């Protein structure tokens, strides 16, 4: 149905020309799901966007190739012709459903808009079609939600609305660009099911763009692997998973987290949390983000904290460090009550407990060099003086795997993975005993994820850390955690050591989380 041949796209800037897509060929058949896999910057999105004329030119430039869609070359079409194809024959679903929906328009109107744009239908007909479609993508009670605004829907529901919007003109090809990356695992599993189901029922072709091989393991029929703008391997799902040829594909497969570590020998409790409550006031209502949670973290242990968004897992981490004020309960760190500590003593204690954040873009001051970022805690806590600080910073950079030459660079000059290394370095600068890692790898590509997890595992040993590792991703937690706590709606659902939890989950919710892990059947 769609056949892309020798497509090349470049970006021209003052500094020079970069080839984003280099001689890429692949075909998409109707009634099949074709997955395009690659890291960020591999050109997977650019390749698909350029087909629809969605790459701005300049700076983009299509250097050559053909893209035959039902016999017609998309690359030769005029803007007007392309506009007719877009949305009618080929539709797109984007990563972030919140930013792609207009917050000031009801979803009903947004759904009807593309329909009335491309076809001559009356308002009543359009409404009827939109309602039927909402039903089909699994929106409960579409009659009442039709006139709701996007913010009244959850992330998963918004993505369903986006899919409905893409399908409303009955396209023959659907391009889904990381449609589940922003979603929780259980929601992700539902959306993947929905896409597979729609594809079977409607017999359309789907291009599924993702950085995560595990996500597409269950639904893709064929897989195209891209690296640095080139296609390195193409094949059926079975062939890719059983018998990958290219080293890069093997690397991607190896990066699918699997296995768990043997529980470490642990000492006395370092952190004791008792009946911790953190409530927020939201307008008139009280939101119980953390509701009566008690647990211990032993010296030298990595405790995993798993839950979906809104389960209160990040709030627990921040409450322990007093970055968020707790409403009640007790947190004892090395037998000192943290929650009632006065400012001066708290500052002294802060040296001993640190945090690593999820988003390495937001967690570093954009106007401070790596050197300044790492030197700040050292000087603050007098762990180094003016004379010795440079040496201490360079040592820290070595420890987290940053090259010394980059000391004078600013955060934006680094990739996401390197930035997370800087953030880890800053947290370790004060030689803390306890570190809260709040989703430290969820913003990263899978291969980078594996590297950062490895680094953290190594540093836990080297620095003798005790860690609270927070994540929504079961497989990531499993790699690092000795013990795991499952959290739901601010309460602990289940607590067990890592292996027991994965092999014999007791609670239904834990079982459901484990079932939602993508690509279980294929990960070894």
């Amino acid at each position, binding site marked *: 149905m769609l056949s892309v041949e020798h497509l090349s796209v470049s970006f021209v800037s003052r500094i020079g020309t970069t080839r984003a897509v280099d001689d890429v060929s692949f075909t998409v058949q109707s009634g099949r799901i074709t997955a395009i896999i690659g890291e960020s910057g591999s050109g997977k999105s650019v390749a698909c966007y350029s087909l629809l004329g969605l790459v701005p030119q300049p700076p983009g430039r299509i250097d050559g190739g053909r893209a035959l869609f039902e016999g017609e070359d998309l690359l030769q079409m005029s803007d007007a012709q392309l506009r007719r194809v877009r949305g009618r024959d080929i539709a797109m679903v984007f990563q972030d459903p919140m930013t792609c929906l207009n917050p000031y328009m009801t979803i009903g109107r947004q759904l009807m808009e593309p329909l009335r744009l491309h076809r001559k239908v009356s308002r009543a007909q359009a409404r009827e079609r939109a309602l039927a479609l909402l039903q089909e993508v699994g929106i409960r009670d579409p009659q009442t939600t039709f006139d709701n605004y996007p913010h009244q829907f959850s992330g998963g529901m918004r993505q369903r609305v986006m899919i409905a919007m893409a399908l409303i003109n009955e396209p023959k090809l659907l391009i889904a660009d990381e449609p589940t990356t922003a979603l929780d695992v259980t929601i992700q599993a539902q959306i993947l099911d929905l896409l597979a189901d729609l594809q079977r029922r409607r017999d359309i072709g789907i291009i599924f763009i993702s950085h995560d091989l595990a996500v597409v393991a269950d639904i893709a029929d064929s897989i195209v692997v891209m690296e640095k703008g080139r296609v390195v391997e193409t094949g059926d799902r079975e062939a890719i998973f059983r018998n990958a040829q290219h080293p890069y594909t093997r690397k991607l497969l190896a990066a699918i987290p699997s296995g768990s570590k043997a529980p470490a020998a642990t000492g006395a409790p370092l952190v004791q949390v008792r009946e911790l409550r953190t409530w927020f006031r939201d307008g008139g209502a009280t939101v119980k983000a953390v509701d009566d949670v008690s647990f211990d973290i032993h010296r030298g242990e990595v405790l995993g904290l798993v839950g979906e968004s809104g389960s209160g897992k990040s709030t627990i981490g921040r409450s322990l460090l007093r*970055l968020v004020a707790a409403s009640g309960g007790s947190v004892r760190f090395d037998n000192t009550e943290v929650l009632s500590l006065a400012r001066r003593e708290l500052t002294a204690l802060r040296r001993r407990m640190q945090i690593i954040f999820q988003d390495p873009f937001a967690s570093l001051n954009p106007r401070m060099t790596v050197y300044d970022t790492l030197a*700040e805690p050292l000087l603050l*806590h007098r762990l180094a003086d003016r004379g010795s600080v440079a040496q201490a910073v360079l040592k820290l950079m070595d420890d987290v795997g940053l090259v010394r*030459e980059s000391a004078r660079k600013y955060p934006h000059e680094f990739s996401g993975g390197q930035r997370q290394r800087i953030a880890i370095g800053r947290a370790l600068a004060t030689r803390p005993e306890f570190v809260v890692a709040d989703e430290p790898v969820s913003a990263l590509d899978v291969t980078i994820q594996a590297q950062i997890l490895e680094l953290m595992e190594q540093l836990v040993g080297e620095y003798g850390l005790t860690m609270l590792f927070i994540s929504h991703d079961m497989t990531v937690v499993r790699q690092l955690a000795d013990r795991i706590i499952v959290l739901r709606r601010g309460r602990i659902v289940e607590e067990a050591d890592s292996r027991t939890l994965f092999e014999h989950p007791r609670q239904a919710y834990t079982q459901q989380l484990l079932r939602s892990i993508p690509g279980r059947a294929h990960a070894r």
Partner: protein
Amino acid sequence: MNTGIADIQQAPPGSSLWQDAWRRLRRNRMALFGLCVLVLLVVIAILTPWLAPYGYAEQNLDLGATPPSAQHWLGTDVFGRDLLTQIMYGGRVSLAVGFIATGVALVIGVSWGAVAGYAGGRLDAAMMRLVDILYALPFMIFIVLLMVVFGRNLLLLFFAIGAVEWLTMARIMRGQVQTLRQQEFVEAAVSLGLSPLTIIRRHLVPNALGPIIVYTTLTIPSVMLLEAFLSFLGLGVQPPQTSWGLLISYGAETMEEYPWLLIFPGLALTITLFSLNFLGDGLRDALDVRGTAD
């Protein structure tokens, strides 16, 4: 590459931003040109009593208004005073008002806004309500009151103008800080144990500078014109003392007969404003570390 590591040993932390900014600014020709012109104008203003060809009160009534000539390069005004001398003396007042009043506004506004934005809650509410109250006070009454109580005085004029201009500055800064405060790098700074003042100084203010610099370059000219307005009402400087604002407003009255009386003071103000804008844009770019790849 090696020098990069060698010279970090000397630099105290936090200074890289300013060093880098200066390095970048030096490479921006327009900004450098603006800076040079401004420095030159300030030097001239300071040395005016020795440089000016005539005394500022010296007049030759027989001469009247004459166009530029060899004796009077920029001509004379209706009272036969040398225009060049007037512009030089006027520059002293205008530049001083522009820079000092804006400086006052900058310091008060940025600290006030940053503290309010960072503290949040009741302190923020109280601080910003005070700003609202001052906003609501009629500016002219405020100035007249000051002049009546303390007598007319140039320093008081600087203070009065600065005291009005900082309000907007504080609001801009507070807005900036409120958005920045949500970011995780601020939370990271808290968890490192930094004091609120250090966080504001090192993490918040440098990140909020862009809009502040732009607003500052807009404030300086508006302050200069405000001075002209006050002087025109008799609340600012009085003849025979003068300022660019006054020269322009008198020049505008007689522009049909004696156009040079408007053109030259106007030119002086324009050159200053252009230089300020070039410098302001340059500073903003230089402080934005993401701006240029180097």
